[in-house]
């Protein structure tokens, strides 16, 4: 279960910041991801790394990304939006 930590002033930042940290860790070369960056085209990720990213995000945010959502995600902004919506759905349930 995700534990809300000391309430950040803008909670959306947490998703963006943590996702960028994970992206940088997975990338095989130095990258400077922007919200509009595309994972494959701009950041040089291959399909294996995209799934590695999904695995890391699932563990980090305690979420499960539905298989069909993967095919629609291209940019960092879309990744962050997906994480945000899954975490909030999760919090509503609990």
């Amino acid at each position: 279960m995700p534990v809300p930590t000391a309430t950040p002033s803008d909670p959306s930042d947490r998703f963006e910041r943590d996702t960028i940290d994970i992206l940088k860790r997975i990338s095989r070369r130095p990258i400077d991801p922007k919200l509009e960056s595309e994972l494959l085209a701009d950041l040089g990720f291959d399909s294996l790394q995209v799934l590695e990213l999904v695995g890391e995000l699932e563990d980090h945010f305690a979420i499960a990304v539905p298989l069909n959502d993967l095919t629609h995600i291209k940019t960092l902004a879309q990744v962050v939006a997906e994480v945000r919506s899954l975490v909030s759905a999760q919090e509503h349930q609990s």
Partner: protein
Amino acid sequence: MTVAGTVAQALIRAARSDRGIRAIEHDGRPLSLSYAALLDDALQIAGALVSRGLKPGDRVALVIPEISGFIRAFFGISAAGLVPVPLCPPAQAGDVATFAKQSQHILDASHARAVVTSSAVAPLLDLTGLDRLTVLALDASSDATPLAEPIRRSMDDVALLQFTSGSTAAPKGVVLTHANLYANVAGIVGPHGLGARTTDIGVSWLPLYHDMGLIGMLLAAMYARLDTIIMSPVLFLKRPSSWLETISRYKATVSFAPNFAYELCVRRVKPSQIEGFDLASWRLAGCGAEPIRADTLRAFASHFAAAGFDRSSFVPSYGLAEHALAVCFAQRLVIDTVDADRLVRQSIAVPSVNGSRRVVRLVACGRPFPHHELRIVDEDGRSLPDRHVGAIVCRGPSVMQGYFENPSATAEALRGGWLATGDLGYLADGQLFVCGRTKDLIIRQGRKYHPPDLEAAIAELPGLRTSGIVVFAIDHLDEADEVVAVLEARASAASHDIEDQVRRRVRETAGLELDRVVVTPPGSIPRTTSGKVRRSETRERFRMGTLSE
């Protein structure tokens, strides 16, 4: 352990056992499918297909991301006497556009009359120009009457149409009969293959839409009536530790994967996770589908020794879709250390003596199965002596019937009953060592790429002013291949970000990362008299550094 029969006959026999398959989906959700329940489901699905007017021998495409759904649909299509044509599901194909294009190519080339899919995937298919295609969503309720028994097929009827690459506009479909599948499965589980025991438990995360996962694990386990756990490839790729965790939890004894998977585990499974695993039960750790690196096996064995992994469990293997799947399995790990210079220059594998400057370590892949033959031949088809590198050719009951409706490609691959594998190798003490390719095929992480497809993708780049494009891989023998794109362009026409654009294009259309993009002046790419680029000569000139001279 196996009895000859069609896929449906084997399922009937397996259904009399108390064994079955445990499917683990991408979110980790397990589902038990006994062979008995699978037979019932298959007859139900077959009823639905037959009621839609499909006739024995018709091709039926199959695109289902869920493991349990794929298996049920595959057996359902087989029970209806139809020919399954597996397709790569959207999440593995990359984006929706790539998926739609790839599937359309294969639906078109296979003349599929129906596609079995799920209601989530169906809307993503592009069925333009495929009006006569019936779409059946497996999860939609069906009121069709189940068949009382499978539609009877003979061993010489087509059992599977396996497309080797979907990225090309002219994909090649490997035609396999029930006799082909049975011959290969019997070889795999038999004493010259894995020597499977009734107590064996398999674990696989290999995609079911590929030969290795489909024939090597699903069909081999079903024919041999063994308990098998089949995980989603997505689950493995998200968390490589899930593979080892599953082997550990179920005390599995058999599991296969390409070289890159072993590498991924070394890189991504943390020491803290290893402590929780018990891999001592894993007696057959198969490795195949792409070049096997001795260094990878060594690194994996030492990384996971603490979890009880035994280095002697490795089963290096060799195979290809045109041979149903497997050609040979090594009975133990044998590494041949040979002189690299003599291998490259003279095509002879001479064991290195102490002091050799450069050596290559090659992994033995074993001997062919009974009733199957393998030879190493020169360009004129004459057998070569031991330790001489030549083309690997195979003959026997596992060899495909040909490429679907493609006589010219078939004639090129099948010559006088012998299958030209396109791979290079040598024999030593009866063991096969694979050391390169005669074809221009590029293999990365078990996936195959055809240079003409990549070249065509680059050529479509808007604004690219080039007079020629050649893509090739340089085989580094004991490390990963280097993939190079050479573009002919005038210096003035070559914008500064041309390299980035080309990389980006190949990444987006094929999911492949180019290692080098080289821009050379017009006229540097060697051509035939008819103006076709000479790929291997370009590669040689690039290696020698004489491309732009």
